[in-house]
């Protein structure tokens, strides 16, 4: 990648914008300087991480309030991808969220979002910021 890319997006607190943000993530991944296979894989990972983080902010942190907003900041250089998703809710303890149960007898419908993010990113933090909270996710690029 020849230049750093920085993107700031604010969307209404509604899931109808998930596909739009997913497409933006996919387009950004196409700028990464790596093999075609890596690029395709990173594009999917970026889309899924953005989707899961946004759903977390929209439904859980902002309690699906359509009048709230979610702010997304994506920074990408030749070494690292950083995604920050800002909500205006009361927050939660990221460390209290355990991995989903993999036993077929105890399957839950929910609880896989943060697990997916943690699996695909190198570091995940959730902390207070700008009067709300930010879910900060970073990944080293190939």
């Amino acid at each position, binding site marked *: 990648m020849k230049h750093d890319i920085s993107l700031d997006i604010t969307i209404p607190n509604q899931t109808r914008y*998930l596909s739009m943000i997913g497409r933006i993530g996919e387009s950004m991944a196409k700028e990464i300087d790596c093999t075609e296979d890596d690029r395709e894989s990173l594009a999917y990972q970026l889309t*899924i991480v953005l989707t899961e983080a946004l759903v977390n902010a929209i439904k859980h942190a902002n309690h699906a309030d359509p009048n709230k907003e979610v702010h997304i900041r994506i920074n990408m250089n030749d070494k690292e991808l950083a995604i920050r998703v800002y909500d205006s809710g009361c927050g939660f303890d990221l460390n209290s969220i355990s991995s989903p149960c993999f036993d077929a007898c105890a399957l839950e419908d929910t609880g896989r979002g943060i*697990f997916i993010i943690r699996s695909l990113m190198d570091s995940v933090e959730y902390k207070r910021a700008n009067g709300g909270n930010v879910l900060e996710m970073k990944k080293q690029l190939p």
Partner: protein
Amino acid sequence: MNVSTETNRGVVIVFVKEERLDAHNSEELKAELNRIFEGGSRDVIVDLKQVRFIDSSGLGVLVSGFKNASTRQGALKLSALQTQVKSMFELTRLHRVFDIFSSADDALDSF
């Protein structure tokens, strides 16, 4: 959500005709599956041939359908997963839970 259903040999096949199965539209698939089970069917195939992207909400709806079918002594099986969709099942270990087939016809033959 754009879905079509057909019944063959007592098995309901649900074709999901969306590129994304995510938190925005997955509740509609859940309602469709619930309608099918409440109508008395217990064996279902969900064909994901056209689905290019699935998130944890989409996976959750399929898990809900799987449990619903199992409770009724039936089965919910999946067919035609695209590579990236299949990778989400592997990441969340759900490929060990669901019977996954390359086509709806293969899934149908397994009942």
